[in-house]
């Protein structure tokens, strides 16, 4: 598909675990904190290699965020690890005051984001986290698409000074980006060049956008696919340049359509060049238990959903 090959399914959280070890090897100021989910966050390797730099906080996420903020005073670079739900909604005020407003160099690393968390159900499937985090002044919000990109992002954020929200997931998904990629915060990646429709996508939906582009190509529709791994700051230039050419846009994300990437793109086009837009995302609903692939279909996050929104947006041109 357009030269992209699944190098083998792997989970983005393992990309985080691998990136964390590599970043910590390069920079001895990096420390890691975890709220009783070391295995789930793939932080075991870090814990084994750097036992004196690993902090088991227990099931106390508010305390974890506060400790991380305090650790920056004296130049440490703390990476906190827990599920996305407990990394954001549970500790919003702690992040807001002790990290964002205080401008502390903490990397909030959140696994099991979105509906693909699967069987645990809606209590754990946060679909609002991007919205909450992007509203905080100064917060960088990153949602990489596969193992390799998550690993690269995990390393790169250690070089950026300031608060970062790094979002990744639980299931094994296609790993297709370059192992040696240069990850640039705030810089979108044009994966496929096309003329008829722009798909702006993030996270697990990027692979599905490539599949959708491939399907539409066979129907004679030329799709441009842009991977927005950094939702904030948004790469406005790459999006505006593309929609100027295609004249319509579809956003795709594993998140509530309210507050997500799609809303950021909508805001951008309203302020610059108004074009028809459709949204692929969860439509203001909570999730439920189920297999990730079944849930993706049911909640409108599949390749088919992207194709049908593309067909719809084409008709509105």
């Amino acid at each position: 598909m357009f030269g992209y090959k699944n190098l083998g399914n792997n989970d983005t959280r393992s990309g985080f675990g691998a990136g964390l070890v590599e970043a910590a090897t390069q920079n001895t100021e990096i420390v890691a904190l975890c709220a009783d989910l070391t295995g789930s966050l793939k932080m075991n390797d870090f814990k084994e290699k750097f036992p004196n730099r690993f902090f088991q906080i227990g099931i106390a996420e508010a305390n974890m965020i506060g400790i991380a903020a305090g650790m920056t005073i004296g130049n440490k670079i703390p990476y906190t690890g827990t599920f996305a739900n407990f990394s954001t909604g549970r500790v919003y005020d702690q992040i807001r005051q002790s990290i964002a407003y205080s401008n502390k160099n903490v990397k909030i690393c959140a696994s099991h984001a979105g509906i693909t968390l699967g069987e645990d159900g809606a209590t754990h499937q946060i679909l609002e986290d991007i919205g909450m985090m992007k509203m905080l002044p100064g917060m960088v919000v990153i949602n990489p698409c596969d193992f390799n990109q998550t690993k690269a992002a995990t390393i790169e954020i250690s070089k950026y000074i300031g608060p970062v929200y790094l979002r990744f997931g639980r299931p094994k998904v296609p790993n297709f980006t370059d192992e040696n990629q240069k990850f640039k915060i705030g810089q979108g990646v044009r994966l496929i060049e096309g003329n008829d429709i722009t798909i702006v996508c993030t996270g697990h939906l990027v692979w599905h956008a490539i599949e959708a582009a491939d399907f539409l190509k066979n129907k004679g529709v030329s799709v441009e696919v842009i991977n927005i791994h950094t939702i904030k700051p948004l790469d406005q230039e790459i999006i505006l340049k593309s929609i100027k050419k295609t004249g319509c846009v579809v956003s795709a994300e594993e998140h509530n359509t309210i507050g997500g990437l799609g809303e950021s793109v909508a805001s951008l086009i309203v302020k610059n060049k108004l074009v028809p837009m459709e949204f692929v995302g969860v439509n203001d609903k909570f999730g439920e238990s189920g297999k990730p692939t079944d849930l993706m279909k049911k909640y409108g996050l599949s390749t088919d959903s992207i194709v049908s929104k593309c067909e719809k947006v084409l008709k509105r041109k």
Partner: protein
Amino acid sequence: MTTTQKLIFQVRRDIVRMVHSNNSGHPGGSLGCTEFLVVLFFQIMKRKDGFDMNGFDEDLFFLSNGHISPVFYSVLARSGYFPIEELSTFRDINSRLQGHPTTHEGLPGIRIASGSLGQGLSVSIGAALTKKMNGEKNIVYSLHGDGELQEGQNWEAIMYAAANKVDNLICTIDNNNKQIDGDLKDVLDLGNIESKFKSFGWLTINLENGNDIDEVKAALIKAKEKCFSGKPVVIIMKTVMGNGVDYMMGTHKWHGVAPNDKELEIALNQNPETLNDY
């Protein structure tokens, strides 16, 4: 009059004048903690000249109950962190002296924002852990309101500090038994604060009169002696809210209310100008 006594009169004047000037702020708790902060900054803490965020090789202080910013700002200014005249900008637009303390406007002496209660102990633990990682033997001090202990995050932090032997930390609870809606026991009774800390594994010190300079100093010296023994240290400091201004003393009424012109005059008459007003 000793230098410390002079400072205390002057800080009290700063507090009531700042709050009066903008008709907003929190005088009660500020006045109650004046002796503590003056003694801590001028007689106890090991501080370097100037200010840098990392605070290497010096003791650190974190204010968790950020609403008592008037006393914090006054003590910071009088300690040389920023010009004393800047106290006149308290709560003004474009001021570095925000209603609640923040790093956001770059005010020297502040290392974390506080105001939303219950977060300062976790932050202090983080800073204390970093001091240990950096091989420092300096101490992290923190101050909290007693009502603030109603916030659950404190108990996560209290549990963590004991379990992980964070013994370069001296946490002080301003135990004035008052909160916005009234007496602590009527709003949400905390029971015995000392026994709670003890049962979590902390070393405890009771400071019976937190408005007595000598007692405050003795308690802080005792707390320092108890550091590095494998346990975190807490000082439970009994204070009188509004101390030093008779009509503000012992009532929650002056938690967040500013004095009017006449009330200011009475307060200033009770606290002579000793070190020049800002």
